[in-house]
Every structure is written in structure tokens, then in C-alpha cells.
């Protein structure tokens, strides 16, 4: 296994009396596609928020690319190469598709000069954003305001926006939620395509067939604790994982899928 790009060491977080994340440690090896799964409310999104700096952990460390980023402001993490998407689409509704992508480039922009340079047709930022969109086959909508676009397209644009930061690692929070089977299949090919350029992918996902066809490794959370860390092939045979899912909405999905 290659060296880990991301290491979580003994991460804990409580909201009031509720221990949402309890002593979670795992590694994400560089260049892999890995899944973070677990029943609803297990703390998956909280882990993402701890990694991207929305919350600070009560205990533990986040180490990215060999550096401790636990105390780094969230704004600076994307510049280090850690980009994410959101569970509910968080695109800027009044910006056009290409503008949303150009916003994704923000972490690579430095200095006031770049801030007041126009982003017109000849701007290298716009050209790069348009090139990225056509590379990802969603260049039909470039000038459209995001709010008017269909759900599946917006989901995809959000992933591309994260990519515009040229991240070393991409964290995706339920990218397939609400997509139909053919859209999900397209998304999987899309993610594989991204991963082949060397970007590490960590994905939170409920759709187990997508997880198995996309990822080799999975970590499973339940009630804020890590209960499984291993191959996706064996995950549904693990007794602890089965127990976590039994009785929950996803029990059948996990057993039969």
C-alpha cells in the first residue's frame, strides 16, 4: 500500500452531551478510492466537517500530506489540496456554471492583482474552467445560472467545482443521492476517470453497489465509532457491520446488495 495522504488520529468531537465522534483513527492511502459508510447519524458528515475544518476536534489530529492541519483554518485547507463536495448541493445558485467552477479555483489565486483582473473570455481562468467542463462532458450548460439546472447536473457540477482546486484528495458527501441508476453509473465512470489522474477519493455513500464497484477499501462508522476498516468485498459479511445496519433503513440493502 502506498503512503497515506490523510491520517486521522484519535479524532473525537462532542456536541453538548452527545459524543458524535469517538476516538476515530484511519488512513487514506494516496491515489486510492475509499468509502466511508455507516447508518444515518453515524457521524460521517461530521468526520468530513472535521477534516475540512468546519469544526475543530475536541481531541485527536488530522494529518494531510505529512502535515498536521488540525488547527489550520478551513479556508486554507483547500489550498493544501483537500477539497470537498456537500451532502445537499451547495453550489452558488445565482452564479453560472462556469462561474461556480472559477470559484472552485479560488484557492489557487493569490494577490490583489489576480482579484481585480477581469474574468472575461480571454482570461486563462475562464478558459481553464471551460476546458475542465468539456473534459468532464458537461460543457452544454456553461453560461446557465445554476439554480435553473436539473438536479443530476448540479450534483456533477459540484464535483467538478471541487476538482477545479486541483486537489490531491477529493471528499465527496453522498454524490449519488437522488440520482437515478443511469446517472449513478455515469457518476461512477466520472469518478473513476478523476481517480485515474491521480486524485485520491474518499466518498460517503449509501448506495452499496456503487461503493463496491468504485472503491476497494471501506471504513464503517456506527454511533461515532469506527467498527470496520478493510476491503469492500467483505464488508457486508462482517458481523459488527451487519449488526449496525440491522433494524436500520439500510439493513436489507446491505445484506442483499
Amino acid at each position: 500500500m502506498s503512503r497515506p495522504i490523510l491520517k486521522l488520529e484519535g479524532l473525537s468531537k462532542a456536541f453538548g452531551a452527545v459524543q458524535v465522534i469517538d476516538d476515530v483513527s484511519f488512513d487514506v492511502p494516496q491515489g486510492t478510492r475509499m468509502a466511508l459508510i455507516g447508518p444515518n447519524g453515524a457521524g460521517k458528515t461530521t468526520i468530513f466537517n472535521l477534516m475540512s475544518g468546519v469544526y475543530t476536534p475536541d481531541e485527536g489530529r488530522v494529518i494531510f500530506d505529512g502535515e498536521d492541519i488540525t488547527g489550520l483554518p478551513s479556508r486554507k485547507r483547500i489550498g493544501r489540496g483537500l477539497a470537498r463536495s456537500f451532502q445537499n448541493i451547495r453550489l452558488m445558485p445565482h452564479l453560472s456554471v462556469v462561474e461556480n467552477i472559477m470559484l472552485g479555483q479560488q484557492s489557487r489565486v493569490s494577490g490583489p492583482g489576480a482579484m481585480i483582473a477581469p474574468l472575461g473570455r480571454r482570461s486563462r481562468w475562464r478558459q481553464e474552467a471551460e476546458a475542465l467542463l468539456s473534459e468532464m462532458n458537461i460543457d452544454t450548460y456553461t453560461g446557465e445560472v445554476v439554480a435553473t439546472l436539473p438536479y443530476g447536473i448540479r450534483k456533477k457540477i459540484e464535483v467538478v467545482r471541487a476538482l477545479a482546486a486541483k486537489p490531491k484528495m477529493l471528499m465527496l458527501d453522498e454524490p449519488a443521492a437522488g440520482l437515478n441508476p443511469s446517472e449513478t453509473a455515469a457518476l461512477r465512470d466520472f469518478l473513476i476517470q478523476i481517480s485515474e489522474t491521480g486524485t485520491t477519493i474518499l466518498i460517503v455513500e449509501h448506495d452499496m453497489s456503487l461503493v463496491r464497484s468504485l472503491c476497494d477499501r471501506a471504513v464503517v462508522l456506527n454511533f461515532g465509532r469506527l467498527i470496520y476498516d478493510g476491503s469492500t468485498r467483505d464488508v457486508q459479511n462482517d458481523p459488527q457491520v451487519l449488526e449496525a445496519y440491522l433494524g436500520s433503513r439500510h439493513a436489507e440493502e446491505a445484506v442483499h446488495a
Partner: protein
Amino acid sequence: MSGYLAGIIAILSINIIFAYGIFLAVASGQLNLGGVGFQAVGAYAAGLLSASLGLPVALTLLAGAVVAGLVGVALAFPILRTRGVYLVLATFAFAEVVAGIILNTDALGGAMGMSVPGYVEWQIPMIGAILVALLVFYLMATRFGLTLRAIHDDEDVSELMGVSIRNVKVAAFGLGAALAGLSGAFYAHNFGYIEAQSFNALVSIYVLLYVLLGGTQTAWGPLVGAAFFTLLPEVLREVLPALKDFFITLFGGVPDGSRPDESWRFVILGVLAVGFMAIRPEGLVTRTMVERLTFRRPSSRFKEVTE
């Protein structure tokens, strides 16, 4: 050119510059309800420099903008830590403090007001308004404008995208304050006389309404909003008496030819504000509308895909 028309163009230009000042703050999601405070700072800075030092108008106009901008930046740092209701209250309070200070400072004429030498005619404010409009249109097409609109839409995600929220907000607020100050300096030189009473809280409310009803998504919004609401009273001046006579006749009375109360204009502005917020809260001019009008990007392609 008639004096009436010249007066309207001057006030229209001043209102457009003022509206752009508030627009920059509002476009980045900061509701500035203290605009008149910055306008007053600019007006009095220009007036004082002109009256006491006899500086040329070009310099006092610049000074009005710079002083108001500096005050804006100085205020922005502590104020911008607060959000939402706190920001509205703080800007509002700032304008009241400014009015209070003017009233109590003899050097500024106190409640008596002060006369400002260096009269400028309507052409100068008009050129100023055109330049300011061009500047804001340019800024909105840069990455600064992009981050401004991103913060307006979703501050938390903008931060995660690497936007320095504080710098962008302070820049927008400070530049906006400078433009408000510039509008005040133009006002001082065009009217030749300034007094604290003309910089009251209602003016802040009016200009914020111009901007919000005009639309905050594009730089067209404040232009359309300020123009519409500056010219509306002039149109109403003609229309309202006729309307009043019509209603009196309708109810079987005899028109007495008197002019209706001036306050009706503000009632209409209020009704428009409430109506817009209920039906079209994004304001008159939206992005989609501008794109349709300029034929920049046909939307038919997307419709084919979904249907």
C-alpha cells in the same frame, strides 16, 4: 438646458453613485442601513475643505470619497465580525452618531448647516456617475466581483472554497462607503449648502430600497433602481393630481385643483417595497433577465435536455 432638467440630472447622478455604494455592500450580503452616514461624512469633508482651505473641487471630491472610505474601512473591521441583525443595527447606529456629531460641532455649522463654495453643475456629477457605473460593472466582472456574489449566496461554502471572507467584505464595504462619500461630496458642491437634517435615517432606507428593488444580482440593478425611484416622483408630480381629480369625480365630487399630499410618493415607494418582497424578492433586474435581453446565451438547449 432648463434648470429643472439640470436639477433632475444632478440628483439622479448623485443617487446612482450613492446606490452603487450601498450595492457593493449588499452584493456581498451585508445590509448597510447606514449609507447616509457615509454620505454625510463625504459631504462635510468636501464642504469643510472647500470652505476653510479653499481647495479646488477636484480635490475636495476626491477627499470626500477618501475620507468616507477610510471611515468605512475603520468601521468595517469591528462591524464585520457581526452578522445579520447586528450588522444592520451597527450601520444604522453609525449614521445616527454621525448626524449627532454634525449637529454638535460648531465647525460644521451645527444645526445651522454650512454653505459650500465651488459650485458644480449637472455635467460633473453625471460624468462621475458614468465613471462609477463603469467601475462597478468592471469590478463585477473580475474575481473580486465573483467572490462578492459567492459570499452573498453562501458565506460558509465560500470560505471552504478558499475565499478570504474578511478581506472581500472589508474591501466591498470600504469601497461602497467611499462611493457613498463621493455622492455626498457631489451633493455638497451641487446644492452649495448642507445641513444635518438632509442626512437623516430615512435617506438610508430609501437608498437601500433603490438597490434591493432594482436587484442585487447584477450591476444593472442599482442603476435601474436609482433611476426609477428618482424619476418616479417627477412622473408622479404630473400623474398624481390627475389621479386625484379622477377619483374625486368618480365619487361624484368636484375637483378643487389642489395638489395631493407629497407623502403619497413615499406611500407608493413603501407599497412597491412590500409588493416586490412578496412577489419578486430578487428585485427588478435579475441575471437571467439580463442574459435574455442581451442574447448572450440561449437557454433553449437546456430545455431540450430536460423535456
